[in-house]
């Protein structure tokens, strides 16, 4: 057996899924007689089985990928603006040089400028012209032009080819929606916007808040005050007066230790639990959970705060227990018991997660007797009625 025979065998081993029956037969015959290529095959199988485990890495959650998308878009947009300015300035400089060159040439080279046209000889007798009224500088109103108004109609996209037809579309990154009657309050980029959905096929933007320092990541209605909502934007919780959707007014803000990644509302005690991280780089991040009391129409009061050693991807409250979702590869869900509402304690691992059975909890939802865990590719339900 020569080198080419071994090479052919190893090429076929590498592309085993797509080889023909004849090639497979030839390969089996060759392997039966060649210890080197058998060793190659066993190593190939060993590597295929072991290396995905040896290099397993927890995928970033959808929220984290969205966060990275925003950063990428900001940096790509910033580069495009800079590049545009650079091209503009380069163009202007070139035009200025060309103008200077042209003027110099006109001044230096005789004959380039055309001779001035001779003045026409006319009769010295001037004919008086009738005097007309000076036109008014104020234009007459044009009945055919409607007054220009700021557009508040949201453009409707053509239906997408899917079982669900899109009725309409607006805005960019939407992270939270709260409905009040026919009005939808949505976290739209760094703002809270109110959209009138009386006619779902033609939604109208009623108004929006001033921009916050950070994208709105979650939105919850105040449990007792229907005119108030709380938005989580960046590292701040912001209480907003939404009694007039056309004029959304921020009332109070509370700054937490880091960017808020998840929230869970305890409506009975008017407490909002938040999870977050203090830096954006995973290797250097510190994570926390905080509890905040929501005074009706009043301030946001920080009740308690603790550090946790894992990324809090989601939160849910059920049966007096706060569930913390994690995207670790060792624990998927933690549970935190309370001595009294809002008083936090160290979370304990509740649902295991391994690279083989990955249970990262990107979304949590608790009912009276069930905890639903939205994970990487599956939805799991756990019985929590006996806890």
């Amino acid at each position, binding site marked *: 057996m020569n080198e080419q025979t071994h090479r052919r065998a190893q090429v076929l081993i590498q592309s085993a899924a797509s080889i023909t029956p004849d090639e497979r037969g030839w390969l089996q015959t060759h392997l039966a007689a060649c210890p080197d290529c058998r060793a190659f095959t066993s190593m190939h199988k060993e590597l*295929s089985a072991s290396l995905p485990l040896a290099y397993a890495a927890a995928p970033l959650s959808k929220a984290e*990928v969205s966060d*990275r998308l925003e950063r990428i878009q900001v*940096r*790509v947009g910033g580069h495009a603006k800079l590049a545009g300015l650079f091209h503009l300035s380069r163009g202007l400089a070139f035009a200025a040089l060309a103008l200077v060159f042209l003027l110099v040439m006109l001044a230096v080279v005789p004959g380039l400028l055309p001779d001035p046209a001779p003045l026409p000889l006319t009769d010295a007798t001037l004919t008086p012209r009738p005097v007309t009224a000076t036109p008014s500088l104020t234009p007459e109103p044009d009945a055919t032009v409607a007054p220009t108004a700021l557009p508040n109609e949201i453009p409707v996209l053509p239906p997408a080819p899917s079982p669900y037809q899109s009725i309409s579309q607006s805005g960019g990154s939407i992270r939270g929606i709260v409905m009040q009657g026919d009005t939808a309050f949505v976290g739209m980029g760094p703002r809270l916007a109110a959209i009138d959905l009386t006619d779902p096929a033609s939604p109208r933007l009623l108004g929006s808040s001033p921009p916050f320092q950070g994208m709105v990541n979650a939105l919850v209605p105040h449990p007792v005050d229907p005119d108030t909502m709380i938005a989580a934007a960046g590292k701040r919780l912001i209480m907003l007066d939404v009694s007039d959707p056309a004029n959304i007014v921020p009332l109070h803000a509370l700054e937490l230790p880091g960017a808020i990644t998840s929230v869970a509302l305890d409506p009975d005690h008017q407490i909002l639990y938040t999870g977050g991280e203090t830096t954006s780089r995973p290797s250097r991040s510190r994570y926390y959970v905080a509890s905040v009391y929501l005074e009706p129409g009043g301030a946001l009061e920080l009740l308690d705060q603790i550090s946790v050693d894992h990324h809090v991807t989601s939160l849910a409250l059920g049966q007096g227990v706060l569930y913390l979702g994690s995207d670790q590869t060792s624990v998927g869900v933690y549970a935190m018991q309370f001595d009294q509402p809002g008083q936090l304690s160290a979370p304990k691992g509740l649902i295991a997660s391994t690279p083989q059975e990955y249970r990262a909890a990107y979304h949590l939802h608790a009912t009276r007797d069930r905890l639903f865990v939205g994970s990487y590719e599956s939805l799991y339900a756990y019985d929590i009625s006996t806890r």
Partner: protein
Amino acid sequence: MARIDDMIRQMAPDDPRLSEALVSEYFNFVYHLGCSILGDPGEADDAAQETFIRALRCLTSYQPGTNFKAWLARITVNICRSRQRKARTRQMLQDALQLRWLLQPPREQTPEEAIILSEGVRGMHQAVEALPEKYRIPVLLRYVHGMSVPEIAVVLDVPEGTLYSRLHYAHRQLRQRLSPSLFESTLTVEEER
């Protein structure tokens, strides 16, 4: 893949819907590829963001209908190599100044690493990490990320024959490291230049 190619054909490179589609589809692949090459999630995260920024800025150089994933992987590998070179330079500087103990405290073991230990595949991991870069990266692309040899040839911009040679020598070295008694090769394939 065809959907992504259609979007690239139809949308302007600075269209936010295009960047959203690309990042949603491929960020975790690029991040995982960065993790496997760099061995540090934070560095991999930064490298993944840099990859997409570079990809979106030079998207016009991608030819729809070829292989976008391989094109993206090529950018990722180049960025990771560049970061590794910088890291090595930093390391050499720190070693030279004998400040390593001061500047870089020992890193705690991550849960992922603990699992690797418990699964008994640490030997395999260490053997692959000890390979020279030109053998290690083809092995990672082939066995961790499941890319075919023709795809890896696009990523690394080397002929397929060269890649088969590199994989062959990677196998030999791994066999030597993992179980010397199994190593009984009589192959005479010359190492490519």
